């Protein structure tokens, strides 16, 4: 695998199950055992009821584009060859929103509300990122 130069997540004790889930092809978030709130980013308390008992739940991996942007400026030298690149905010079927990159689609074809599904991108041996593509497969 070629050396991956883009920023990598700072994996903490809180977020480790999330990243381990992605590595094993599961998108998992915490769901409160007491009030059923599902939340992101990972945290120690249910932001709804302050319970500390939760279950890491597997999600569908489907959602829709809530908003998106195109970077025309390379703030990192490691993305210099990728501009213009997209970043999308995807709203999962189950509610929480994630920032991600859309793959298998031209930037010009991205639309708010379009249905998308997760693609697991193993960027290093340790880290897998959650990217998304148009539901039913990308065009390229």
């Amino acid at each position, binding site marked *: 695998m070629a050396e991956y130069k883009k920023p990598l997540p700072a994996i903490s004790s809180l977020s480790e199950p999330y990243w381990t889930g992605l590595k094993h092809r599961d998108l998992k978030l915490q769901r409160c055992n007491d009030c059923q709130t599902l939340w992101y980013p990972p945290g120690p308390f249910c*932001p709804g009821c302050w319970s500390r008992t939760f279950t890491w739940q597997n999600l569908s991996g489907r959602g829709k584009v809530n908003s*998106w*942007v195109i970077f*025309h400026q390379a703030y990192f030298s490691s993305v210099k060859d990728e501009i213009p*690149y997209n970043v999308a905010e995807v709203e999962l079927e189950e509610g929480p929103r994630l920032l991600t990159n859309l793959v298998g689609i031209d930037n010009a074809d991205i639309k*708010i509300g379009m249905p998308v599904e997760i693609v697991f991108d193993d960027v290093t041996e340790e880290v897998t*990122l959650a990217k998304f593509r148009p539901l039913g497969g990308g065009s390229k």
Partner: protein
Amino acid sequence: MPAWDLKDQAAVSGVGHSPYGKRLNRSTIDLAGEAIRNALDDAGLTRDDLDGLIVSFGTPIGADADTLAYALGLKLRMYNQTWAHGRFTATCIQNAAMAVSAGLANHVACLASVSFSGFRKPMMGGAGDNEGAREGGGGHGEDPVYGMTSPGAGAALVAQKYFHRYGATSRQLASVAVAFRKHAALNPAALMREPITVEDHQNSRYVCEPLHLLDYCQINDGAACVIVSRSDRARDLKKKPVYISGMQGLPAGREEFIWTHPGFGTSQQKVFDYKPDLQPVYQMAGVTQKEMSAFFTYDAFAILVWTALERWGYCKPGEAAAFTQDGRIELGGALPINTNGGLISEAHVMGWNHQVEIVRQLRGECGPRQIANAQLIQWGNAYGDSLIYRKG
């Protein structure tokens, strides 16, 4: 009824700033010292009168309160500092107003001194994205792992959603930058004074699409300072006081995203029709939006003007795009906004340059860009804090 009514108990007694410039090659302590000295001169105070200091933006881009006191030989009874973010302008002034009202200090200098272009490392965006690497995430929706970096990207996310939800356009947003540039043309301190057109805006390159370069603030060096004093002391000083009549704190929580109001649906916000209701700042000051001579807001990106107008009830969600057309927000319009030229065209001094301008407007010191008979001005932000200033 609050236990302790702070309406008009504190006032701005002096304002001052350093030159603003793209590459001043001056230290942030040097710039801060000049701004503080100019503000004290403006108030008719001396260095020995100053016993409080509140800094809104320190390391790594600005001068810190403790090192400033040391370098400038200040003798302080109290100092305070917020972390390096522009959003704390009102918070600092509120804390100063409380401090002088409570007798913790007589005169408090509040300021930011920044060097974005100088010899400090960049903090926001790119390889120095310390903001995006915070535990819990970046304050503007940063997620550098997916290339989501810089405060402007979060604003671009809001702009895209705004355009889609309300059928608004980038072309309409251009009116904000065009208006502020007209204001800057009348302001000798402003960095960008050449007039621009809607076409110039549309033809400027995208930085983070859908935001164009001309939707973005300046990146510069400079310092601006406001002296807050107890009102009875301020009345004895050189200039007429400008009273702090209303204050409202900076909200936070899962229904807040820094670049818009609740209900908008960015980050983890729920989606609902936001209603501004009766915001505490108006209740405290005993006034309404209709009485404002002008509105000032943190315009790091043009879209924030729209979401601020909606948060503060100058128009309903979705209506700001139309509201900002036809010169309504320009000098001479129904609601002039950021008559200094804003962060977009005067300079980016974390909103402290706006406080200087508000005070000068309420004193009638603004020359060709003076608002006729200015009585009340609101500082109100997309992120939900506010001050109402009243002419003394």
